[in-house]
């Protein structure tokens, strides 16, 4: 006979404002098998948990239903409380009265009725719950960090310094990411490369870090603590062990007109190239799409000039298979290009550039060696216009969110321009100035007050070319929306920060969620910002949402701590919610008839054939058997099984049918 306790939480007023919690508890108390029922203001608080624990001990409860928030929030809390009072934690179920009821319906009879139903179905379910024991699995203490920008670098260093092995993969030939492209950083105006490159070198030299550049994740299998990754190391057409990085090949390569990705298309590179002088590793790769030898079958000049014969034209991609215990995704972001803006000339005016291109112009390592010159004719612009929110906060463009970093970098750009072009005039069109952050607002004020940047509140409707000038037409909304027209020499668009191309594909490989903008989704927006919904996979930096450098670094360190915490254990416990094939006494042994449809349905190859032998060792029956180490508990096999011989713990047929029948019989 079941002795079930029902614990109804008010969640302050979050539930009780629309649901009559007292009535829910009273009604539940009358159900068959319920021996204790109570409502309380905060079930998750210490006194709340004590109510549950005391009831378990005093009333000898065999099952617990906590009717409160989503189990995704507090299931571990209440299961732990049950365990502490000596009840098996898997004898605890949660009815979701908050997210699925009180928050989404108006106050009234129907809402309370629904709450009662939700409690009832779980009371019926918990009657069929079984005591389960967590499964113990070993932990592979190696982390995989995907993406070698500042977030990936920081996460790698932090994990490596905690004493664990790290594999860092980067799709480009060098680590460094967007931060390596920046000129100066706000709000201190210190040189980006000066603070970044020492860390890049540290990564390359760290004994705990294995760095694979020009590499991407091919596939991932497994689960927390026990992932198996395949990494594709794209062919660099080079033997890295022999190459000394002298760079002779890059100076002799005849194909010199390829737009440089590092310089955002404002400079050129050769087909065999090192993306930038401080690259780590500082060894070239051959870009096979542009290399004359791969296109025409002739050239091989780099091979001839190489003093160490390191060029390998026939080198193939290499697949590295490795076992890892945790993953940090730090793949960063992309920015919209100028061709995204029809109203600003579809990207056909060369002197309308993106913020990232301006960074390259302002950078001492850039194509103009730090002088602000127009891409079209190399003249120094006397009038420059900066446009904030180019694409961002624009529902019509499909980017309703704020890209967050633009207000700050525009102030920086305008400031850098004023410092470099004396007597130049700079204008910023903005919607709002969002400068939340330590010393951020002060930085923007400095641009306006000390450096004389003209801030105009309003949007720009159109930009077109006339007599060699870019005519910027906008409005000043602080002066009642009067039209403003500026004849500019150059325009910088603070284009929206967006998810990387391929983010969706990577999310699918890793089985993590992503939002409608294709940024990776965190497990909880406030309390689990660096975790994903998939255990053992963490997030760092702008792959989760637009982030500035300090935020990316903080997230990376946060993710690293999560990984280090995971690796501090030798064994992990896993939820025992896995499939099992029933076993019965001889001569039946199991209702499984050995059709093995489940084997083909299982996405984890977790189902094997088991042979049942008699005393003489003769096989008398073949049935399916689930490997508990591999089963992830999806239950696909359960729905496949025609003889109902396989069931999933925690979501058994008995439990699910009881839920549905309990619901509809009184609904």
């Amino acid at each position, binding site marked *: 006979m079941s002795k079930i306790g029902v614990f109804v939480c008010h969640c302050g007023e979050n539930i009780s404002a629309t649901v009559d919690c007292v009535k829910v508890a009273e009604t539940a108390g009358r159900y068959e098998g319920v021996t204790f029922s109570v409502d309380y203001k905060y079930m998750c608080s210490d006194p709340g948990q004590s109510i549950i624990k005391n009831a378990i001990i005093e009333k000898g409860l065999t099952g617990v239903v906590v009717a409160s928030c989503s189990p995704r929030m507090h299931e571990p809390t209440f299961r732990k409380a049950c365990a502490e009072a000596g009840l098996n934690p898997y004898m605890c179920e949660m009815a979701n009265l908050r997210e699925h009821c009180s928050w989404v319906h108006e106050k009234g009879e129907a809402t309370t009725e629904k709450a009662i139903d939700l409690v009832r179905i779980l009371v019926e379910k918990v009657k069929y719950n079984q005591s389960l024991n967590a499964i113990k699995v070993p932990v592979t203490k190696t982390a995989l960090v995907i993406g070698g920008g500042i977030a990936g670098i920081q996460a790698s260093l932090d994990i490596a310094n905690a004493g664990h092995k790290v594999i860092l993969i980067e799709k480009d030939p060098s680590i460094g990411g967007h931060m390596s492209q920046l000129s100066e950083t706000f709000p201190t105006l210190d040189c980006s490369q000066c603070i970044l490159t020492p860390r890049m070198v540290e990564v390359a030299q760290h004994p705990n870090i294995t760095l694979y550049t020009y590499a991407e994740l091919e596939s991932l299998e497994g689960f927390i603590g026990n992932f198996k990754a395949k990494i594709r190391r794209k062919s660099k057409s080079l033997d890295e062990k022999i190459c000394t990085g002298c760079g002779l090949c890059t100076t002799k390569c005849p194909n010199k007109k390829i737009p440089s990705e590092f310089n955002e298309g404002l400079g050129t590179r050769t087909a065999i190239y090192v993306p930038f002088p401080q690259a780590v590793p500082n060894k070239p790769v051959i870009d096979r799409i542009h290399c004359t030898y791969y296109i025409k079958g002739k050239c091989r000049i780099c091979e001839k000039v190489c003093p160490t014969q390191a060029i390998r034209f026939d080198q193939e991609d290499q697949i590295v298979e490795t076992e890892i215990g945790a993953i940090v995704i730090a793949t960063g972001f992309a920015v919209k290009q100028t061709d995204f803006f029809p109203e600003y000339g579809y990207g056909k005016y060369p002197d309308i550039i993106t913020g990232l291109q301006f960074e390259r112009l302002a950078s001492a390592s850039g194509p103009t060696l730090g002088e602000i010159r127009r891409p079209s004719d190399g003249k120094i612009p006397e009038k420059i216009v900066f446009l904030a929110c180019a694409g961002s906060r624009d529902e019509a463009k499909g980017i309703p969110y704020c890209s967050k970093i633009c207000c700050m970098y525009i102030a920086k750009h305008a400031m850098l321009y004023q410092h470099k072009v004396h007597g130049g005039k700079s204008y910023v069109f903005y919607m709002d100035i969002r400068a939340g952050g330590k010393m951020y607002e002060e930085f923007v004020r400095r641009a306006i007050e000390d450096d004389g940047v003209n801030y105009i509140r309003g949007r720009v409707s159109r930009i077109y070319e006339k007599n060699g000038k870019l005519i910027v037409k906008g409005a000043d909304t602080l002066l009642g929306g009067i039209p403003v027209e500026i004849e500019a020499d150059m325009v910088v668009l603070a284009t929206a920060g967006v998810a990387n191309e391929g983010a969706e594909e990577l999310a699918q490989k890793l089985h993590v969620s992503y939002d409608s903008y294709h940024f990776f989704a965190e497990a909880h927006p406030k309390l689990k910002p660096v975790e994903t919904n998939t255990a053992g996979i963490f997030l760092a930096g702008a792959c989760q949402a637009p982030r500035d450098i300090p935020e990316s670094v903080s997230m990376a360190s946060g993710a690293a701590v999560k990984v280090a915490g995971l690796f501090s254990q030798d064994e992990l416990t896993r939820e025992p919610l896995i499939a099992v094939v029933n076993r019965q006494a001889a001569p039946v042994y199991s209702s499984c008839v050995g059709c093995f449809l489940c084997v083909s349905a299982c996405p984890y190859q977790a189902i094997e054939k088991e042979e049942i032998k008699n005393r003489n060792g003769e096989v008398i029956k073949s049935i399916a058997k689930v490997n508990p180490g591999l089963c992830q508990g999806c239950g696909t096999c359960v729905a496949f099984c025609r003889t109902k011989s396989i069931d999933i713990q925690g979501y058994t047929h008995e439990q699910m049918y009881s839920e549905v029948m309990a619901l*509809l019989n009184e609904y």
Partner: protein
Amino acid sequence: MADFEPKIVAFVCNWCTYAGADLTGTSRIKYASNVRIVRFPCTGRIDYMLLMKSFDEGADGIIVSGCHPNDCHYTSGNFHARRRWIMVRSLCDFIGIDIRRIKFSWVSAAEGAKWADIVNTTVSEIRELGPYNDYKKVAKRPLKEVSHG
């Protein structure tokens, strides 16, 4: 049928739609209170006999919802669910269950508003169709006396 309140059961997966419905809550988006969510680990776990049973037990409509194609937490459970749904759909049609009573959809963990929308549309559509009485007509029995547990 204006005052008819349909009984709708939703079978959802833990990783996408359950979380999506949580998001509807955290975003405080209001929707019709006629739906009761039953949590499964994955849509691939949903045994379609349970759908038949739900109609037998008196449901007027059913929602089955999981992760979008390719987004399944378990790689392919939602594909199995979809494949099975295509078959069950024709079966239901064949045996005379109005297939408009079963809504099959994808709602991701980020689609709180979509969940509210699906519930509201389903409720108003089922309200139009009226209560599902076919089982009751052929098998007369006092439903409340069915024992369980």
